C-alpha cells in the first residue's frame, strides 16, 4: 500500500508564518487539495489579500497576484474578463472583504463574475494587531473596542453570506467552518463545489469560513475553538445561502407569474 496522506502538489513545502492554532493553514490546505483534485494548477491564479494571508503566495505553487486592501475582487474581475480560461480565486479576511473592500465584493458578486472567493471570517483584524472588524461580535474586546463592541456605536456584525445572497444575480454562497474535522470535510466539499461552478462558467462562488484567531482573541487555540462554537456559530449560521439552480428556477417561476 502506498502513501495515503501526502502534501498536495499545489502546496509549497515550507513553514508558514501563521500563529499556532490559526485556521489559515487548514484553509490553505483545503484550497490546495481542491486545486490538485480538479487538476487546474497550471491555469490557476490566486489573489492574496492585505492581512495575515498577504504572504500566502509563499505557500502555494502556482501563479499569484497580491492585491491592495479590499481590491482583490476588482483584480479578479480584470483577470476573468480578459482571460476567462484562467481559474481565479481571491482569499480575503473580514477587514479586507467586509470593510474596505465592501464595494468591490458586492459589485463583483452582483455582476456574477466567474471567480471564487474564500472568505476567512475570524471576527477581527489580524495582521494590523487585533482591531475591531465589521464582523466582530457584540461585546467582543479588540484593541479598538477595549470595552467590548458596542452595538449602539458600531452596529451589528455584518453577515456577508446572507447579504450577498440577497442579490438577485445567480450565485453559489455558503458559510462553513474549520472548527473540527467534520466541519472541515464539509468545508472542503463546498470549496470544491465553488471552484467547479467557476470552471463550468456557471456563477460567482463564495465560501465563507468561520475561523479562529487565538493570538488576537487572547486565547489558547482550544479556547478559541470553543469560543467560536459558542459565540460565532449561533450568529454566523452554517449552510448554503444560495445556489445558482435555485435562482434560475425562482427567476423562471416569477417570469411565469408575470407572463
Amino acid at each position: 500500500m502506498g502513501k495515503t496522506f501526502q502534501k498536495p502538489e499545489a502546496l509549497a513545502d515550507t513553514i508558514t508564518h501563521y500563529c499556532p492554532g490559526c485556521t489559515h493553514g487548514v484553509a490553505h490546505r483545503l484550497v490546495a487539495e481542491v486545486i490538485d483534485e480538479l487538476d487546474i494548477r497550471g491555469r490557476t491564479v490566486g489573489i492574496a489579500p492585505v492581512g495575515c494571508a498577504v504572504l500566502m503566495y509563499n505557500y502555494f505553487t502556482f501563479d499569484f497576484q497580491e492585491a491592495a486592501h479590499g481590491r482583490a475582487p476588482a483584480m479578479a474581475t480584470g483577470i476573468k474578463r480578459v482571460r476567462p480560461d484562467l481559474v481565479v480565486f481571491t482569499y480575503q479576511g473580514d477587514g479586507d472583504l467586509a470593510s474596505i473592500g465592501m464595494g468591490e465584493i458586492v459589485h463583483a458578486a452582483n455582476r456574477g463574475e466567474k471567480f471564487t472567493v474564500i472568505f476567512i471570517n475570524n471576527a477581527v483584524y489580524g495582521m494590523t494587531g487585533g482591531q475591531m472588524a465589521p464582523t466582530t461580535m457584540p461585546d467582543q474586546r479588540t484593541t479598538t473596542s477595549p470595552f467590548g463592541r458596542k452595538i449602539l456605536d458600531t452596529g451589528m456584525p455584518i453577515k456577508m453570506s446572507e447579504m450577498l445572497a440577497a442579490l438577485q444575480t445567480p450565485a453559489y454562497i455558503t458559510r462553513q467552518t474549520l472548527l473540527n474535522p467534520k466541519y472541515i470535510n464539509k468545508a472542503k466539499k463546498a470549496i470544491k463545489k465553488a471552484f467547479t461552478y467557476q470552471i463550468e462558467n456557471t456563477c460567482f462562488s463564495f465560501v465563507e469560513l468561520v475561523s479562529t484567531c487565538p493570538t488576537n482573541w487572547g486565547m489558547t487555540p482550544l479556547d478559541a475553538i470553543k469560543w467560536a462554537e459558542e459565540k460565532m456559530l449561533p450568529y454566523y449560521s452554517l449552510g448554503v445561502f444560495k445556489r445558482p439552480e435555485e435562482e434560475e428556477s425562482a427567476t423562471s417561476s416569477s417570469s411565469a407569474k408575470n407572463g
Partner: protein
Amino acid sequence: MGKVLMKGNEAIGEAAIRAGCLNYFAYPITPQSEVAEYLSRRLPEAGGVFLQGESEVAVSYMIFGAAACGERVFTTSSSPGISLMSEGISYITAAQCPAVFVNIMRGGPGLGGILPSQADYMQSVKGGGHGDYKLLVMAPASVQEAVEMMMGAFALAEKYRNPVMILGDGLIGQMMEPVEFPDSLKAEPTNKDDWATNGMATRNRKRRNLVKTLYLDPEELNSHNLMLKAKYEQMEREEVRYEAYNVDGDYRVLIVSYGTMSRVCRTAIDNLKEQGFEVGMIRPQTVFPFPKTAIYAAVDRQSCRAVLCVEMSMGQMVEDVERSVSGRRPVHWYGKCGGEVPTPEEVMEEVRKIVK
C-alpha cells in the same frame, strides 16, 4: 484609410483598438464619458472586452488584474476620477505592469468644474499616488496627436513595464478634428511569459509567476526602488519629446506651453511676428520626461530675455521650467484655471508686459 472627422474622446478609444488593445474598463465622468459610450458599442464588435466598473478605485484594480496577467489594457477618466485611480496606479507601477491611463483634465480642486483645465500637471508628472514612482506622461495638442500618442503608448508601456498616461485637457476630448490611424503605429505583440500571471501551464508548469508590491526587507525594497528609478532615468534619456516653434530667429521671449494651450500660444506668436516681435516656443510633448535640455538650450539665445510659462493651471509647470532654465533668465507665468482658455490677445499682452 483616409481621414475621418472624429471627436477627440471617440478617436482616443478607436486609437487604442487600432493599436491592438481590446480591453477597456472605465467609470463615467465628464468630460470624457464619450470614450466609454463609444467603446461600449465598438469593443464587442471588435471582439474585445468592455466593462463599466463600480468606481474608479475598482477600475484601477481591474486594470491591474488584467495587466498583471499579461493582457493589454487601458482606461480613461478625468481629474477626480484619476485621484481615485491613483491608489491603483501606485500599485501597478510598483508591480511593473504595463497599462495606459488617459486623463482628460477638468477643473479642480474638488469637483472643480467640467471645463478644460491643465491642473493635474503635478499629479501626473510628480507621482499622484503614494510612494516613489513616475509615469511616462504624454500631452497631445490636437486630436491627431492624441491618436498617435495613444497608439504609441502601449509599446512604451510594455518597453518599460510601467503605466503610460495620456494627459489631455478637456478640449482634446471634446473637439472634433480630422484624424487618421496610421497602421505603422500598431503595437507589436510582446512576450510577457517571464513575469505575467497567465497560468503556469504557459511555462510547462516549470515556474510560477508572482506579481506583488510588498517588500518587507528594507534592502530589498531599496533595491526595488533603485530599479524603478533606473527606468525613469532611461525614460529621461530615451523618451523626451517636444516641438520647437519659431526658434530660428532672434526671439526675445521663450514660451513654454503644452496641450491645447500651446495652440493658442502659436497664434499669439504668429500675430506678434507680424508686428515684428519675435517669440519662440518649446512645447513639451512628454511632460515626464520633461524636455529640460531643450529649454536650457533655447534660453541660451542671446536675444532671449525672459521665459513665459503659459498653462491652464496656477503655474504647476513653472517649477519644471525654472529647473530647466537654471536661473539664467526670469521665468514668468500666465494662465487661467477656471475653465476658460486664455486668448491669443491675452497671451500677447502678457509677453509684451514681461519684456517692457
